[in-house]
């Protein structure tokens, strides 16, 4: 296993960024935020450093370790199939920037 793991250093000045500008813009699009072109270089460096730092985990041999989805050891609590809430559209809409006839109103979104 371990021979497949690349040796990531924590060198901030690495000119071999694992995150390129295209990826920055893709992430920005998925997150619905706008990234100005002049910020791309900085973000490439910062995100690449973070990724490289997390990549250190790759040094651990996990070949025989089950993936862990919870650390508490508790089991999933469940509810009965009973209606216990709802019927209060005014409360649900109380923080809505805009509403009409108990609908949320948002800028038009049509796919």
């Amino acid at each position, binding site marked *: 296993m371990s021979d497949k793991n690349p040796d990531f250093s924590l060198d901030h000045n690495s000119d071999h960024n694992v995150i390129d500008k295209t990826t920055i813009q*893709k992430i920005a699009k*998925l997150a*619905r935020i706008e990234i100005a072109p002049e910020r791309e270089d900085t973000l490439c460096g910062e995100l690449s450093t973070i990724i490289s730092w997390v990549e250190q985990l790759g040094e651990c041999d996990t070949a025989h370790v089950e993936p862990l*989805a*919870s650390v*508490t050891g*508790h*089991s*999933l*609590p*469940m*509810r*009965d*199939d*009973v*209606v*216990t*809430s*709802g*019927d209060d*559209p005014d*409360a*649900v*809409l109380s*923080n809505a920037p*805009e509403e*009409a*006839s*108990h*609908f*949320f*109103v*948002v*800028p*038009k*979104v*049509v*796919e």
Partner: protein
Amino acid sequence: MTDVSSLVEGRTGKWEVVIGLEVHAQVSSQAKLFSGASAAFGAGPNEHVSLVDAAMPGMLPVINQFCVEQAVKTGLGLNAEINLFSIFDRKNYFYADLPQGYQISQYKQPIVGEGSITITLADGSTRDIGIERLHLEQDAGKSMHDQHPSKSYIDLNRSGVALMEIVSRPDMRSAEEAAAYVSKLRAILRFLGTCDGNMEQGSLRADCNVSVRRPGEELGTRTETKNLNSIRFIAQAINSEVARQIEIIEDGGTIDQETRLFDTSTGQTRTMRSKEDAHDYRYFPDPDLLPLELDAAWVETLRQSLPELPDALRTRLMDEFGLSAYDAGLISEDRDTAAWYEAAAAGRDAKLVANWMTVELFGALNRMGLDLADSPVRPDQLGQLVERISDGTISGRIAKDVFAIMLEDGADPDQVIEEKGFKQVSDTGAIEAIIDTVLAENTDKVDEYRGGKDKLFGFFVGQVMKASKGQANPGVVNDLLRQKLNG
């Protein structure tokens, strides 16, 4: 193996169609998957919404145990593997009707693994269609775009409603098979009671993945047509998509992997979003939810308590009542139809009851636009009618007249037979008298018959039946006529 019978003929040769379906079935629960708001259809806007469904900060999902149980039951009904350990993941995307910014779903470790469904086609042949998985997930809210020129209106009533997504293998080869698959799946869900299968209200919707290829070659590029809410639309969408893809390829083009919508007014599919905009869902385990662990003994208890399913019922109808595969298939489509049949057939000529039910009754209900539940004729009344045919009180032809009257006023067949004087005449004296009159009125034909024109026998039978207003017992008429003509 390529099934030659389902190939589609193009301009340049034959094409094989490959179809896989993702069906979303709403769990028939009172409350939603992770909140205590009602899952019922038809409330006013945002009335069935809890603060969890509206994704208010600090709200935590708590899973509905009943929904888990229904998913397991459905898995068992699909002969599928039940995963005792499964995980809820966040499927991330932005849309106005998804206030969390992610849908809670199951990605790599779903609650139900591989299974299969046996479908029956019109020619009576059967095929097994593989099920890849079934997982639990939340439904999204509903957007309306036609209320305002620049705004969309959002209703979150469906947000968080429990859905079972049932994913098939790409095992279907025609629209007919896809339609049979959805019918069968819906029947299984209804028999189990885990989903009401109501497609008009959106309790059952299908996404169709369709591609075409030359027989035996590699899979072609597929398109996905979303959100089809009737079996007829599923078949139409597949056929129109197959024709479109074949035409593009035969014209030298290539198919784009894309999501398409079906336009019910034109019967055609159109682009919804292309591959370039394809979602990147960034699935990861939902930190708000622990893994779902099931007790093997509990699953076994559910398995033991499963009701009779369509296939078992169909087999029983064939074994116990001697029905044809076709009739048994029709009658086992839903539990109420089967119960109606069993009530009508008990102690009677079961095949004849099946025939009357599927031909005369279904035909009449269809014409009247009624469901079986609203049938003016009750099961015991149809059974009684068939009994009167079996015991010779009326002929099959007269029975149709009696049935027509029963449909009109819901009367008992015995009452109709009595009041209208429909009773079949088996009294040889009365029939002999009629025969004598008929023969006396047709002496020329009698001579011809005796001269060797055997075919005239049918003519005499017809005349006697007519003279008796259809009430003479045809068997007795035949015997007596033969005696008199040949004697």
